[in-house]
């Protein structure tokens, strides 16, 4: 396996002139949680940039800060310190509505436990992020249809999540993340609640999406799945300790 190891300093280099754009750039991002007067340093001085079209996998022991990092990338949370620019715009300290707007347009989430809404049909679940954009119904229909087709769930649009298997539910969740054509897909252990066969199917789906040009950032424990990515980042105790890029 051909891999290169880079130091964190190297990660901060400016976007290359080869036309590949830097999508995400974290600079000295730190996250401190304060609970019962105990400070937890979940992330300490993270430098990271992700380019458009990259498939990044994040690994590390439990509690090392993977989910925290993903939340910050997904603008679900704000860093305690450091800067975060997304598509060249500083987003670390935006207001709540602003962050919601960017989440909605630029980021697609895939959760370990699918997080579909039980009362809504598959179609409506996928449509959800689009409705928050004020998109016209006909256009929504087209977007949702496309997304469901891409994950191979077009024929299940009218089903309720409870009528689907776990693997199918996760594919719907992927469709939901895709539907809005976000700049990046963020997935936190997307196979954690699936058996290996279903897990692999979802990983294959992600790989396919990547091949189609999607930018993906995924947290996974599973070494096998980590190999699907073309870049693997190891976290330990809130720091990036390894960043392996599989040579293209």
């Amino acid at each position, binding site marked *: 396996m051909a891999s290169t190891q880079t130091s964190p300093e190297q990660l901060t280099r400016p976007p290359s002139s080869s036309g590949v754009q830097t999508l995400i750039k974290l600079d000295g991002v730190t996250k401190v949680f304060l609970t019962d007067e105990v400070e937890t340093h979940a992330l300490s001085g993270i430098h990271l940039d992700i380019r458009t079209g990259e498939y990044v996998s994040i690994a590390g022991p439990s509690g090392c800060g993977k989910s925290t990092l993903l939340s910050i990338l997904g603008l*679900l949370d704000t860093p305690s310190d450091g800067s975060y620019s997304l598509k060249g715009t500083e987003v670390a300290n935006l207001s709540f509505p602003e962050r919601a707007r960017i989440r909605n347009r630029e980021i697609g989430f895939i*959760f370990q*436990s699918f*997080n*579909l809404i039980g009362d809504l049909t598959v179609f409506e679940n996928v449509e959800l992020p689009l409705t*928050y954009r004020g998109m016209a119904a006909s256009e929504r229909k087209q977007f949702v249809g496309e997304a469901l087709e891409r994950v191979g769930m077009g024929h299940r649009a009218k089903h309720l999540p409870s009528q689907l298997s776990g693997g199918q539910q996760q594919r719907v969740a992927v469709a939901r993340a895709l539907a809005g054509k976000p700049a990046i897909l963020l997935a936190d252990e997307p196979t954690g609640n699936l058996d290996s066969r279903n897990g692999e199917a979802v990983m294959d789906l992600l790989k396919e999406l990547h091949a189609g040009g999607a930018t993906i950032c995924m947290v996974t424990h599973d070494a096998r799945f980590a190999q699907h990515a073309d870049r693997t980042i190891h976290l330990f105790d809130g720091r990036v300790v390894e960043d392996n890029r599989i040579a293209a």
Partner: protein
Amino acid sequence: MIRDLRYAVRTLLKAPAFATTAILTLALGIGVATTIFSAVNALLIKPLPLMAEQENIVSLEHHLRNVGEEHDLGFDYPSLVDARKELTTIEGIGAFEDTTMIISGTEKPDRYLGAAIQADMFDMLGVKPILGRTFRLDENEPDAPPVVLLGYDLWQQRYGANPGIVGKTIQINGLLATVIGVMPKAWRFPEVADLWMPLRKTNKETARGSFDLEPVGRLKRGVTLAQANAELAHFAALEEQRHPDVYKGSVFRATPLREAYTKDARGLTLLLMGAVLFVHLIACTNVANLLLARGATRAKEFGIRVALGANRGRVVRQLLIESALLGFVGSAGGLLFAVWGVDLMLSMIPVPLPFWLHFDLDFRVFFFALATGLLSSVFFGLLPALRISRPNLSEVLKEGGRTSGGGARGQRVRDLLVVGEVAAALILLIGAGLMMRSFLKLQRAEIGIDAKNVLTFRVGLPPAQYKDPKVAAQFFDRLIPQLAAIPGVTSAAAISGLPASGTGMGAFTLEGEPPPKALQDARVASMQTITPGYLRTFHIPLVRGRDLTAADDASKPLVGLIDQRAAQTLFPGQDPIGRRFSKLTPPGEPVKMVQIVGVVGDVVYDRLTRKKSRPTIYFPESQEPANFMSAVLRTEGAPSSFANLARNAVLSVNKEIPIYKVRLMTEVVKESYWDRVFFGTLFTAFAVLALFLASIGLYGVMSYSIRQRTQEIGLRMALGAQARDVLSLVTRDALRLIGSGLVIGLVGAFFVVQTLRSSLEQVSTHDPLSFTLLPLLLLGVGLLACYLPARAATQVDPMEALRYE
């Protein structure tokens, strides 16, 4: 069982916030229900005091077939005598009359309300005196020596409970009457009488057709009400045959005494009971919702128990014991609320209550509170208990793949309960709204007088003592100028019956008309005797002709005033001035023609709740004297401060004559519809309570559902929902609940309020204002109740919500 109870106590103690909320809610519901039940008990359940075998006591009523049974005319004395003689199914038929009795002689004169009764009436009712004896039949005779029975309170207060009072004489209405006995405590038959004398009818009063008696009798042993009524129908036919001019179309009927007593209040009281049961139901629903919500948090505990093989019956029993404990403590709290509630309710009644009506918290009320608490504990406890005891184990297993909304079924039950609450609250609100509008209309009703700054009091010369009407006329001739001379009194007069108090009806014929064939065809009018200055005192306009003056005395031709309504109905398109009419006189008496000299503005003399469009005729007091009159004084400044000056003026004319019923005219008007205010206020209070409880229910269900949906809401926010998106999501839910409740409530109210029809004046049961504003009010309050949970929803932290473990 004991162990279960102990465990239940412990469980509730461990959740003090839940327990307190549930108990307070229940206590509130049970409290209002018990308060009103005490009224239902007093009116309809509790035996009437002191009367023996009271289920056989009947009241005899008389109405005209074409007028309707709601207008009980009463018996005339001759038909009563006939009935007493001829009826075989009813015995001891006797009549009574409320009579003012002035006791004088020793200290200052005092006016009491007494009753003149048939001599054997108390024996028939089965009430025994505590001292002495009751009347003998011969004491009914007009020439028998006067005797009196004292009431307990009078005996206690005026005679110091002197056991030697029997045999003594006291001066009543100028007669020396011998005390023959003292009646037991709490006996004030027919309503609030303090002493009794035998009924003695003079010839003039015993004319056929002067219906004013409400006889009471007792069904003979073994006779049913139906048999008695059959005989009364036969009796009516006989009377009609004998005196067709008087009894044509007459219907005589026996009604159980309690039914006769409670006729007026029964319907509204039962409606009130219905209303408070609604309130209590809403309270129970809130508790059920609390329990369901709590059940959801305890589901795991019971799920594990059941999974481990716990017997389902035991689980249900345990949960029901917890509910019963809540119900029991709620009952105790409810009784405490009721003690206070009954006091509050009584303080709203401005008139003296009849002796048989006692709103005490007796064992029935106590039992009611307890039973309500325990019964409702099944109502609010069973559903949650059944749900908790049957956890869906497969759902618990599925929990791993967290797709939110799994509790949809439980949520639906809670939603349904809240929809029911909103509907119930709306029905109550609309009912109360209609009643409020009705009594506001009464309050604003134009009765044709300027009631402000007028003091009124009743004063009169007992007819037994002052038999010559001229003496009465002279008394008032002297009194009115004395009253008018009081500094600060701008005008004074007297009238036989005050406006808005429903007295003084009479029949008449116009000159040239044949006398009516039967009484039921006669023209009737409100007939009032007034002193000159009456119009001026009440600011009643003189529309045509002239006012009555002191010159219209007994030596002059008879004159009278009519109101505009009379002018329009009797003389349409003609000038009434100079036209003549005569009062209907008993056969044999001479007809006296009265000439109309003036037309005045319309004044309502009926009680405002019994208003009929009847003409009014006024006579001058010197030509048509009345023994009892109400004085009216228009004053500068607070009228109530003139009461003592007025009393002194009366005493200076005759030191034996007390004044009573001293009131502001504005109070008199208000009292004429106090029952509407009373029922309207209670309904409104309960409706507001229902509104309050329903909003708490909404609040509870919404905040619970939002807590359940935290994760979903967090997810939506992660997907880019803005605060307003979340707000509209939650609001949509709230609107769905409130909206369904409102629709059901509107339909329900549409039908339920029909039962109010007879208690509404000038308000349609489909009053558009009530049917639009009140749902809007409920909608507003409901949305407000949802606002806090909705705001909490917008503050969900998506990170927090989506973190899984």
